[in-house]
C-alpha cells in the first residue's frame, strides 16, 4: 500500500510543541543561528598534509597568515576536527587511510582540497600510483587551486567554506563547487608527446604551428653565441 510521502504533513511531537507555544519557533531559529555562528567560527582543522602543500599549510598556521585569527586550530586527531584539509598528493596506498580518517571524523564535517594534486592529481594525474583528485574518495566542499596555494589562498578558502556553511544551514542554494580543471594548454605534458598510438608528425605540426605564431622567433637566425634570456624577468 503506497503512501504518497509528499502529501503527509510533517508530524513530530516536538514540532507540535513548537506550534502550540507562540514565540518558541522564533527562539529556536535564534538558537539555530547561534549554533551556525559557532560552527562557522571554530573550525578545527585536521591536516591531511602529505607533501608540499603541507609545508604551505604550516606556513598558514604560522605568523604570516595565522589561521588562529579566525579560531581555526590544528588538532592531531580526527575525532576533534571539523575540517579536513587534504594538502598534497594522495596515492593509491594512502587513499584507504584518508577515507578511514574521514570516516572517523564526527559530523558536521567538511573537506577542503588544497592544491592541484588534491584536486585532480596535477602532474601525477596519469601515474599508476596516484589517485586523480581526492574527490574520488571523499566529498570535497572547497577547492583551493594552486601548486601549492599561498597561505593567503588557504585563508580565503576557509572564508569561502564559512559562506558555504552559512548558506547551507539557512537552507539556501549555494553554488555547487566545481573542480577547477587544468587549462588544456598545459595539460598534455604526458599524453601528447609520447603517448602510445599517437602520431609524432601531428606533434611536430602542432609545434611548428605554435612557433610560427611568434614571427620574430622564426625570423631570427640560429643563435651563434649564448645570449642571456631577459624576457621573463618582468
Amino acid at each position, binding site marked *: 500500500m503506497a503512501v504518497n510521502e509528499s502529501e503527509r504533513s510533517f508530524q513530530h511531537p516536538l514540532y507540535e510543541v513548537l506550534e502550540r507555544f507562540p514565540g518558541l519557533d522564533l527562539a529556536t531559529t535564534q538558537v539555530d543561528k547561534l549554533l551556525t555562528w559557532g560552527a562557522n567560527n571554530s573550525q578545527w582543522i585536521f591536516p591531511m598534509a602529505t607533501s608540499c602543500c603541507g609545508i604551505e599549510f604550516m606556513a598558514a598556521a604560522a605568523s604570516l597568515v595565522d589561521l588562529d585569527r579566525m579560531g581555526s586550530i590544528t588538532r592531531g586527531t580526527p575525532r576533534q576536527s571539523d575540517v579536513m584539509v587534504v594538502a598534497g598528493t594522495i596515492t593509491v*596506498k594512502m587513499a584507504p587511510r584518508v577515507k578511514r580518517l574521514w570516516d572517523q571524523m564526527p559530523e558536521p564535517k567538511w573537506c577542503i582540497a588544497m592544491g592541484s594534486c588534491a584536486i585532480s592529481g596535477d602532474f601525477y594525474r*596519469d*601515474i599508476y600510483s596516484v589517485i*586523480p583528485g581526492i574527490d*574520488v574518495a571523499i566529498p570535497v566542499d572547497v577547492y583551493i587551486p594552486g601548486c601549492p596555494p599561498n597561505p593567503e589562498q588557504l585563508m580565503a578558502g576557509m572564508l569561502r567554506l564559512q559562506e558555504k556553511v552559512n548558506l547551507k544551514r539557512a537552507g539556501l542554494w549555494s553554488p555547487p563547487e566545481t573542480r577547477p580543471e587544468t587549462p588544456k594548454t598545459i595539460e598534455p605534458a604526458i599524453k601528447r608527446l609520447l603517448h602510445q598510438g599517437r602520431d609524432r608528425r601531428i606533434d611536430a605540426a602542432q609545434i611548428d604551428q605554435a612557433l610560427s605564431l611568434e614571427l620574430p622567433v622564426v625570423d631570427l637566425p640560429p643563435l651563434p653565441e649564448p645570449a642571456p634570456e631577459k624576457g621573463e624577468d618582468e
Partner: protein
Amino acid sequence: MTPAEENAAREQAFRRLLRERFGVEGEADAPLPDDGVVVDRAHHVDLAKALHKAGWQLYVTCAATHFPAVPGKKPTDATTPECFEVATVLRTVGPGSHTARWRVKLAVGESLPTLVPVFVGADWQEREQFDLVGVHFEGHPDLRRLMMPEDWEGHPLRRDYAIDTPHAPWR
C-alpha cells in the same frame, strides 16, 4: 698522505682492480669510459668486497634498468633479447672524494647477488629496485616491496608497464 691523495690512490686502485682482476678491457691506468664499465655477474660481490676493503666506504645507489626486447630492423635480423642492467655507485669519504661505478647485465630470470652483507645501506635501495623494476636480488634478507602496496601487480618502472595503469577502485 693527505686524505685527498689517499682518495686519488683509491681511484687508481679501482681502475687497476677492474682491469687486472675483473676482466675489463684497456690499459691498467687508462681512464674509465664515461658511462661506466660492465662487470660480469659473477664478479659483482667480489668487486664490492674488494672496493670496501680498499676504502670505498659509502654506498651511494643502485639503479636497475629494464631493456625490453627490440626487434631487428629487417625481419631477418635477430631480436635483441629483453634484459636488465643494474648499476652500482660507491664513493670514498673525505677530501677529493671519488665515485666508482659499474654495471651488471642480467638476462630475464637471472638474479643478482645482494650487496647487503657488504653494505647494509644496499638494503632499501635493492628493495626499491626489486619493487619498481623487478630485479631479483639473491640472498637479500628481507626482499619485500618498498614503495608499492604489498599486493601490487607488476613492476612500474619496466618499460612495458603503461604509465596510466588503472587500479580499482581508486584510479
